[in-house]
């Protein structure tokens, strides 16, 4: 991450796309930047917050972050907001009217699409927003372009008085490449000027702005036609010409260096005439776009013959391993050679176990899921955060995940829509602190207001764990680590109408208390909220304690500690035995990786023979486990 003292101008730095955007935002004289974390967008705001002379905040959700940026732009400041693709679903209500008012200060919105699903609940194409909201869109293909296009986006935004969307993907946000950086140029705020016809969108006011938006569309398309961000590279092999954007552009250049290609940097509105002229110079035109066939459909509608998703996949990245065979097939050539180890057509991966992400050693969520995994006859509506991993092994204790905050409404629907056969099922919802504040509170209010019977587990770990432990209003810290008021969750849910006696704050490392509280609350036919109160192990609030070890001869192989799911516990040996009842059981003997154990004490509690004891720290620690 960049230091507080920014690197001097003209330095060539190895920057990720996110770091490059952050640098450009700062250099552009942006004064206000807001975001809610979300992979792969998070580092943009993290890095911006390290620069001087710019206000940066973690907003409570993406809609608020966009609104903060809009307000600043109305006040004549350059402003910025960043979000992951699904964030724009949340923010879009503001976006769709913002397009009518436009802005005064330049406003750039970076949206990071998770093409390839590295860590998201879906894969959606944010380029639709440019079309839907009639807004211009830039698509960088590497860090240098991310840097340059961010600067160009501020200028375009001010020139056309409308926000500009910077569409990135994981393969831009997280790739590090060389960037030559420049100087910061300050832009003073021009001040808010009252202009109700523009800033107050009543039906009558909005009706007058819509024709202006269409005028702007035309002007933007004309601008795209001549934009230096849209370039043609000639090539001698004219059998196929490519139109591409974003990281797919680099893959096209890598795969077909001799083919003519048109790069869309200013990709919305599509410069149709420029592409029409290019199409006339090649035998066939192929559109290589991640992920939906947007440009392709627009070209076809404009009468430009092209291929796209008929030969390329509509999901995932369009890397050379996808492009080369598809184009070879199109041209009737044999499968590309050169990638043939040991005479195989394509290199075949070895079969190795999967290694899904796990919860951290001693994560405060472990005790909750261990407890939930012991309960029967329950349905658990889950949410998005580290605790989504509770759906996996060994707990298998989460039944739904849709979108942030959805656990509340879904639990309510599971309750109200239950089948006769499920009438005795208990409905639970599990939600993290950040997700609750982002979009969960409203759902809980709905449950309270409409009389739902749901037991809510609110996992307050004082951080946005999933995205790296950022602060939120529940942590009492701001983006710079400064002190802020801290949300009191018990008071908050009480004020939403949850009865005081139905609210419990418990320590998730105290298994008997947790178990008893959950078991009792699910029996009560009304809404309860159980709040856990221990911090994420990634943040400073977490304090390590003396680690544990297993006394091998005392371990009976019962496997209880394994069910806790702490990654510091390892099975060393399995043994099948026949019980006196005649039942065959598999024993699992374990050890604890003492160097990783933080002494949370969770696994100690279900160990009946007391085989887990504080480690003797005078002995060398066990590090590698076999």
């Amino acid at each position: 991450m960049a230091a507080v003292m920014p690197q001097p101008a003209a330095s060539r730095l190895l920057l990720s796309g996110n770091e490059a955007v952050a640098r450009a935002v700062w250099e552009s004289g942006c004064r206000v930047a807001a975001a809610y974390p979300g992979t792969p967008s998070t580092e943009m705001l993290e890095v911006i917050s390290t620069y001087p002379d710019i206000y940066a905040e973690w907003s409570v959700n993406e809609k608020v972050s966009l609104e903060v940026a809009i307000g600043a732009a109305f006040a004549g400041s350059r402003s910025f907001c960043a979000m992951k693709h699904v964030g724009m679903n949340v923010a879009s209500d503001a976006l769709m009217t913002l397009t009518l008012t436009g802005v005064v200060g330049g406003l750039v919105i970076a949206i990071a699409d998770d093409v390839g699903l590295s860590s998201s609940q879906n894969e959606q194409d944010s380029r639709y927003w440019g079309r839907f909201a009639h807004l211009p869109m830039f698509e960088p293909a590497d860090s240098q372009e991310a840097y340059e296009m961010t600067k160009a986006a501020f200028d375009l935004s001010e020139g056309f008085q409308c926000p500009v969307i910077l569409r990135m993907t994981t393969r831009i946000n997280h790739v590090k490449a060389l960037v030559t950086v420049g100087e910061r140029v300050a832009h003073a705020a021009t001040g808010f000027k009252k202009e109700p016809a523009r800033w107050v969108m009543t039906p009558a006011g909005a009706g007058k702005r819509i024709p202006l938006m269409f005028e702007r569309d035309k002007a933007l398309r004309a601008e795209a036609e001549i934009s230096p961000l849209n370039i043609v590279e000639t090539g001698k092999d004219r059998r196929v010409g490519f139109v591409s954007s974003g990281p797919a552009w680099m893959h096209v250049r890598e795969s077909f260096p001799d083919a003519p290609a048109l790069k869309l940097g200013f990709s919305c509105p599509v410069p149709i005439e420029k592409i029409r002229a290019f199409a006339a110079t090649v035998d066939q035109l192929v559109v290589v776009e991640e992920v939906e066939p947007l440009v392709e459909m627009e070209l076809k509608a404009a009468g430009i013959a092209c291929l796209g998703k008929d030969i390329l996949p509509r999901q995932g990245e369009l890397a050379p391993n996808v492009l080369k065979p598809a184009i070879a097939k199109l041209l009737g050539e044999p499968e590309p050679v050169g990638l043939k180890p040991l005479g195989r057509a394509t290199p075949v991966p070895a079969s190795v176990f999967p290694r899904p992400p796990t919860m951290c050693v001693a994560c405060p969520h472990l005790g909750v899921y261990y407890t939930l995994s012991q309960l029967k006859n329950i349905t658990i509506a889950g949410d998005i955060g580290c605790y989504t991993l509770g759906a996996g092994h060994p707990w298998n204790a989460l039944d739904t995940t849709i979108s942030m905050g959805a656990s509340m409404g879904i639990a309510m629907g599971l309750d109200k829509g239950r089948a006769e056969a499920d009438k005795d099922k208990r409905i639970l919802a599990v939600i993290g602190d950040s997700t609750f504040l982002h979009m969960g509170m409203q759902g809980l209010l709905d449950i309270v207001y409409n009389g739902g019977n749901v037991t809510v587990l609110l996992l307050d770990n004082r951080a946005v764990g999933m995205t790296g432990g950022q602060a939120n209003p529940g942590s009492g810290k701001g983006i710079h680590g400064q002190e802020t008021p801290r949300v009191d969750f018990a008071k908050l849910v009480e004020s939403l109408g949850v009865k005081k006696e139905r609210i419990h704050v418990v320590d998730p490392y105290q298994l008997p208390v947790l178990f008893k509280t959950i078991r009792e609350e699910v029996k009560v036919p009304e809404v309860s909220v159980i709040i856990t109160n221990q911090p994420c192990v990634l943040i400073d609030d977490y304090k390590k304690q003396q680690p544990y070890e297993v006394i091998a001869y005392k371990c009976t192989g019962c496997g209880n500690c394994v069910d806790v799911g702490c990654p510091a516990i390892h099975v060393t040996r399995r043994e099948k035995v026949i019980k006196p009842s005649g039942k065959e059981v598999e024993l699992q003997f374990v050890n604890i990786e003492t160097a990783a154990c933080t002494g949370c004490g969770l696994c100690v509690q279900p160990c009946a023979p007391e085989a887990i004891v504080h480690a003797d720290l005078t002995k060398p620690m066990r590090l590698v486990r076999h």
Partner: protein
Amino acid sequence: MSDNQVTNILVVGIGGQGVMTATEILAEAAIALGHDAKKTEVAGMAQRGGVVSSHLRFGNKVLSPQIMAGQADLLVGFEAAETMRWCHYLKPGGLVLMNTARIVPPVVDIGLYDYPADPIAEIKSRGYRVHAFDAMAIAMELGDVRLGNTVMLGAMADHLPFPPQVLLDAILKRFSQRKPHMVEVNRKAFEAGRAADKAANQLSHAEAAA
């Protein structure tokens, strides 16, 4: 080496092992020599013990940041099964530098999957050359597991298209800025890695001869 030749190095392991840092240091070394470089990984949830594969490409001009299967010049594995998982990314007959340490994930612990019996043999059976050594043990001997990273970098040093000193300089530069007291021990770790690679190389020749 032709003008536009790009060197492809794939570094793999699991979240928290320092894979991405190692690749970044390699990238810094390449850049110091005036190369263009791109480094990529998809590691959204790597923090939580998932698979990490970090791609580094450098040369005159780098376009796509991704190394495709069958293209890597060098595969560096920080963990045994992970090295096996990615070995098909190597060029035919390519070189594998690997830490023999095994880090067993919970899905293996709870009995859903098996850890491969002999990852090294499996990799060799595919025609790749393997230099294997216990980087963790070497790091522990030097007094700190976190040195494993530098040990791995040291092992790479004699297989790069630039002199080992360039890589060592990049490592030491990092430490002299952030943790000056760690400079000397990192220099040792680097040399220990180089030595481990040499020994593993001799062993693989001896095996081939036997």
